[in-house]
């Protein structure tokens, strides 16, 4: 085989390799989403966040509008504070918007669900959502149920 032919085949090989990496990037992983979208952050205080994690989705009406960017415990009130990074294209959320932590399916991942309120003022960067509903913890629910049942007996 001629030298030039070998070189062409090697070039082809390298090209396929990079094409494979490109497939992994575009088709398999979430790089298209993580490509820096403009966001603004909104915080919310909860009693219990259940299994919510950083990078969990924030949805409104089932549509992904942002992701959880930070979770920490307020040092004074000792309640969890969740910071959400919401895509800037959704910048007209009313200030009365309420936040609740829901579970996808019965045992699925937990996510933040926002439902809009009826206000003319919109949430700005750094604002806080006051109307919040904590995560349902199944163990607590079962505990309460068993407790009530035993009271009836």
């Amino acid at each position, binding site marked *: 085989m001629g030298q030039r032919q070998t070189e062409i085949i090697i070039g082809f*090989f*390298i090209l*396929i390799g990079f094409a494979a*990496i490109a497939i992994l990037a575009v088709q398999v992983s979430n790089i298209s989403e993580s490509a820096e979208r403009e966001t603004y952050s909104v915080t919310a205080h909860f009693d219990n966040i259940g299994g919510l994690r950083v990078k969990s989705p924030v949805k409104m009406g089932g549509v992904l509008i942002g992701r959880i960017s930070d979770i920490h415990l307020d040092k004074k009130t000792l309640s969890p504070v969740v910071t959400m990074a919401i895509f800037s294209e959704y910048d007209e959320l009313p200030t009365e918007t309420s936040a609740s932590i829901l579970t996808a399916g019965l045992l699925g991942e937990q996510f933040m669900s926002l439902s809009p309120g009826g206000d003319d003022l919109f949430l700005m960067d750094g604002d806080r959502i006051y109307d919040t509903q904590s995560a349902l913890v199944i163990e607590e629910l079962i505990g309460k149920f068993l407790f009530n049942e035993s009271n009836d007996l």
Partner: protein
Amino acid sequence: MIKLAQSLGTRTLDTMATAGRAGRLLMQSILRLPRFKDVYLTYVQLYSIGVQSLLIIAVSGLFIGMVLGLQGYTTLVKFGAESALGPLVALSIVRELGPVVAALLFAGRAGSALTAEIGLMKATEQLASMEMMAVNPVHRIIAPRFFAGIIAMPLLAAIFSAIAIIGGSLVGVNWLGVDSGGFWSAMQGAVDWENDVINGIIKSGVFGFFVTWIAVFRGYDCVPTSEGISRSTTQTVVHSSLAILALDFLLTTLMFGDIV
């Protein structure tokens, strides 16, 4: 008793000396600024190391992906969770199977060939005659093959992963009827570019480094007889397979240990 202690000591010292020679070979081939001629020698080596391993990598990837799709489906469908097939196939391939299986195949296909080639060069005194001509065989023969291995391995592993995922989707979506939109979008939701794909590529780079190092060293260090070459070739495959699996555990705990 004394003989036992003696042989134990000799063996330990031998192992130490081997490790020392391997380290020296690594230093000699790396610690030299690459010149333009080296780049070309490395590029040409990509043919025997990369291109000729392509077929076995692609075919194995296709079948491993297809088997994974089939087995994953039969288990997941019992729980009505066949939409999780995409993440199952993609994560297990991108994180583990892609780098590891590709590296094992690479060790068997390219590593053994490297050892045999360099060993035969040593046995037929080609390396010695190069030295006579004031050409350093480490620079001329070892270093280009070494770098070619490090470049080729991540590319081969990426090709393996991509083909395996396509194989998984062939079985899952086209044959067993998992919804194609759910398959791909659930996969994209679960696979992270940095945590999963990049770490997988880093893994395969590390494997490529060790496999080629072992292969060129075993060839360069072999006993220059036909028996010695065959033993070195066997050692290459055995040692690099063990190294790959042990390193994989180590790298996995480092990379994915804190991901729940």
